[in-house]
């Protein structure tokens, strides 16, 4: 950028993984997001993974107070935020200690030397200063500078207090990285201007720090090389960066627009699902009503009530909340009203590790209700996929008059990636028509095709009728204890759900279409599996990949595909839940690859498992 940088060599890279790590007060999420957005505008493919501490704001400098944000940006199509980072930015000793182990050998290590006082070191339980350790500079490209001092100097002119001035140090670090990767400052400058429009002094300081970072990096030749990661050859179209929970909210809103229904979201906050509520609460001008209920039970009940009254009722939660909704979900099955229940899964059991990810609510979603209460279960697999999966949930709920469980997880919900904004014409259309015809009306008369019952909303003259959780007589919906009727109704409810599979598009296997190993996945393992399978292809291993959006009912063509491979491998962030289902449905000896560490698989791990299966 600056003219006088002849001697710094420029290296082209395919992709880079940067992890920003610091105290939760250090603004690492913000820094990471800015880097992500700038790279997105630049045209890279991207994936991010924020890693918050469990505490809101832990005491400064402690190990449990470390907040991280990983971004992977690439000149190619990528699917995960990367396994181990190429670059680590560590704002204090605690951040260094927690993250150093994962930095690639020889990776770039930027450390804020200004925060390595004995007190800081003690808080991170270091008994010596790791920066004094020679091995650090041997093993990594160490850039240890005093960001505090640099920041104070840079913003001196604003007259801010030291405390406020130091708040800008993350922008200084960001500026350095922008320089290193040849990125313009403009996007972040614009963003700062908007954010601090009413606080000119703070704005000025932040701008100064950002620019100073770039300048320092350039002038002091901090980096031995600078890098270039070209734009990725993404399919043409308009893109935006999207977070999983945000994408889900947008998809739900879009779905209701397509169904021509008002959206009612009744929810009770819970990590990591709360952001769906927060996002929807901002969509009030899209016919969205949000209701923060007193608990999860009230949340789902209010949503059922809203669907009964003619909105599309939805509720969102995480695993413990889904458990609480079980009884009411059974009611929704019985009264056959549309309803969407979002579960952004987290690590359990019980309260578990709320800020960590897991995929272990699958069997709960399928079977966690009294008696036979079948319902469709969908799973989204990436932040960008949330939009389409949400649309599909709305389509199924309204077409089949059924509650739907939509599984996401913390990794998807908090992660982000570029999302190709669909053209409106390409979206499916499924407008809802309420039933108003008196002639021959029966509350439980079914559509021949879908077996859905009519959706009649209170206020419709002449169609007054009663529904409820007691077993109902086929057709009339009156209470019935007749044994044969009960069996008929149980089977009708089951059959209705089974028929949903008739509306799926054919499954698409990625990679080999038959052969040695099929990696069968669902949910957030998508990126890691895709990465591993790509690497297999490079290594000429025969591997196919199939990723399920529809977990229940299972796609009709799944059985055939399973037959085409010698071995089926199912990696899941649980102990074997999809695997259990597949084994019982198809009697294939699928191999479970479980991981329950509150973190996603790495592609490398999966590659190893695939190689083992080939051995």
């Amino acid at each position, binding site marked *: 950028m600056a003219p006088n940088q002849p001697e710094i060599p420029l290296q082209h890279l395919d992709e880079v993984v940067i992890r920003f790590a610091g105290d939760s007060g250090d603004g690492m999420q913000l820094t990471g997001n800015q880097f992500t*957005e700038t790279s*997105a*505008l630049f*045209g890279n493919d991207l994936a991010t993974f924020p890693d918050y501490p469990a505490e809101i704001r832990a005491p400064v400098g402690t190990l449990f107070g470390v907040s991280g944000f990983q971004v992977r940006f690439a000149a190619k199509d990528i699917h995960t935020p990367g396994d181990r980072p190429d670059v680590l930015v560590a704002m204090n000793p605690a951040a260094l200690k927690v993250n150093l182990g994962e930095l690639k050998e020889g990776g770039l290590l930027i450390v804020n030397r200004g925060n390595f006082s004995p007190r800081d070191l003690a808080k991170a339980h270091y008994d010596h200063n790791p920066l004094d350790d020679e091995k650090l500079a041997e093993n990594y490209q160490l850039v240890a500078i005093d960001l505090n001092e640099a920041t104070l100097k840079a913003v001196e002119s604003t007259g801010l207090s030291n405390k406020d001035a130091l708040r800008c140090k993350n922008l200084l670090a960001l500026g350095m990285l922008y320089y290193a990767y040849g990125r313009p400052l403009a996007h972040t400058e614009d963003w700062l201007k908007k954010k601090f429009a009413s606080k000119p002094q703070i704005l000025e300081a932040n701008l100064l720090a950002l620019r100073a970072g770039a300048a320092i990096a350039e002038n002091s030749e901090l980096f031995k090389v600078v890098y270039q990661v070209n*734009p990725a050859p993404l399919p*043409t*179209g*308009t*893109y*935006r*960066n999207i977070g999983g929970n945000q994408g889900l909210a*947008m998809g739900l*809103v*879009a779905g209701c*627009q*397509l169904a021509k229904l*008002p959206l*009612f979201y*009744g929810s009770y906050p819970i990590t990591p699902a709360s952001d769906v509520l927060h996002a929807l609460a901002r*969509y*009030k*001008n*899209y*016919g*969205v*009503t949000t*209701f923060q*209920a*007193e*608990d999860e*039970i*009230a949340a789902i*009940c*209010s*949503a*059922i*009530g*809203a*669907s*009964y*009254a*003619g*909105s599309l*009722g939805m509720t969102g939660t995480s695993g413990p909340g889904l458990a609480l909704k079980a*009884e*009411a979900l059974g*009611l929704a099955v019985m009264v056959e009203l549309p309803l969407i229940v979002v579960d952004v899964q987290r690590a359990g059991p019980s309260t578990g590790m709320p800020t960590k990810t897991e995929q272990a609510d699958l069997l709960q979603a399928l079977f966690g209700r009294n008696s036979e209460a079948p319902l469709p279960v969908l799973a989204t697999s990436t932040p960008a996929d949330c939009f389409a999966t949400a649309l599909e949930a709305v389509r199924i709920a309204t077409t089949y008059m059924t509650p739907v469980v939509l599984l996401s997880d913390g990794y998807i919900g908090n992660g982000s990636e570029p999302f190709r904004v669909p053209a*409106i014409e390409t979206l499916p259309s499924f407008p809802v028509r309420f039933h108003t015809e008196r002639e021959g009306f029966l509350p439980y008369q079914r559509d021949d095709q879908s077996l859905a019952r009519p959706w009649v*909303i*209170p*206020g419709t003259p002449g*169609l*007054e*009728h*009663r*529904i*409820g*959780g*007691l077993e109902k007589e086929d057709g009339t919906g009156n*209470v019935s204890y007749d044994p044969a009727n009960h069996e008929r109704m149980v089977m009708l409810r089951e059959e209705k759900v089974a028929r949903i599979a008739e509306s799926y598009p054919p499954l698409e296997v990625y990679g080999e279409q038959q052969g040695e190993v099929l990696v069968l996945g669902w949910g957030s393992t998508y990126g890691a599996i895709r990465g591993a399978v790509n690497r297999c292809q490079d290594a000429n291993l025969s591997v196919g990949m199939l990723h399920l959006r529809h977990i229940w009912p299972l796609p009709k063509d799944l059985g055939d595909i399973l037959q085409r491979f010698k071995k089926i491998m199912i990696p899941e962030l649980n102990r074997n839940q999809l695997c259990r289902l597949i084994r019982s449905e198809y009697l294939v000896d699928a191999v479970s690859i479980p991981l329950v560490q509150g973190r996603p698989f790495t592609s490398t791990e999966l590659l190893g498992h695939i190689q083992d299966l080939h051995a």
Partner: protein
Amino acid sequence: MNPATSYKKKDFVSNQEVRWCPGCGDYAILNAVQQCFASFGVPKEQFVVISGIGCSSRFPYYMDTYGFHTIHGRAPALASGVKIANPDLHVWVITGDGDAMSIGGNHLIHAMRRNLNIKILLFNNRIYGLTKGQYSPTTVPGKKTSSSPFGSLDAPFNPITVALGAGASFVARTVDTQIKHMKGILQAAHEHKGFAFVEILQNCVIFNDGAHAQITDKEVRDARQVDLRPGQPLVYGKELEMGLRFDGEQLLPCKPEEASIWQANSPTGARAFQICQNTEDGSIPVPIGLFRQVERPCLEDAIHQQVKEVTQNLGQGDLESLLRSGETWDVS
């Protein structure tokens, strides 16, 4: 709203056989509600009757309106969704002392504080009827029931103080056998703009027969009940020959002409809180009627008002604007 037809009681009678025990107090309440609904001048398709689980909660099946027999304790939560989604509907919740005050207590008090324009009729028979006679949160201590064979030990709730404590804007009590009084209260509940809580003393002939007899029996009724009528003096007795007056924290018998004038809309409702507890020793009659009625904003109105304002400020959203929102870039 359609021009309201003129209805008869039978227009609200559904085609389902009523399945309460012969002699159950629920019959009289059903009858009164059907009569009242016919008289409100509301198109019948606008009524939604929602219940939980219990003998009382079978009520919706017998009403020829829209009806939803939900799950145990959750009727107020479900009704909240209905009312928010469609504020035009007239939403009535039917519940029992177990359904509303035991498993459903939390939804009840939250609905009260939010002040949705919903009416709740709590059939208080002081027992779990449907599950065959266990003690409930309103059962008198010492009662032997299937789950308390040696006598119940729990202190009961006073449903009126609970409602007042939760901030209900309308709190009333009536009696299954006093149909005229009941209809007056139902009418007032209907007219109230906001959450209306009505406790109905109801007799369960099978498991708790006579639970309210000491105040509802014809012979004692006049002496043992005082009807709280806003703007009227606190008088009672066959000839209204007795009165009550507040004296600080005490409630004292007095001549009718000295009786305090009842107000249901004081700033704090402290006297309602007081009078419904002043009766433990039997020297003072038990209040029925209107404990409290104040106006405050209904949540569903506020919600829809906010939607309107936001829409005015930000413009009506559609698919186009949704998809174009946020920072985008093009790849070509």
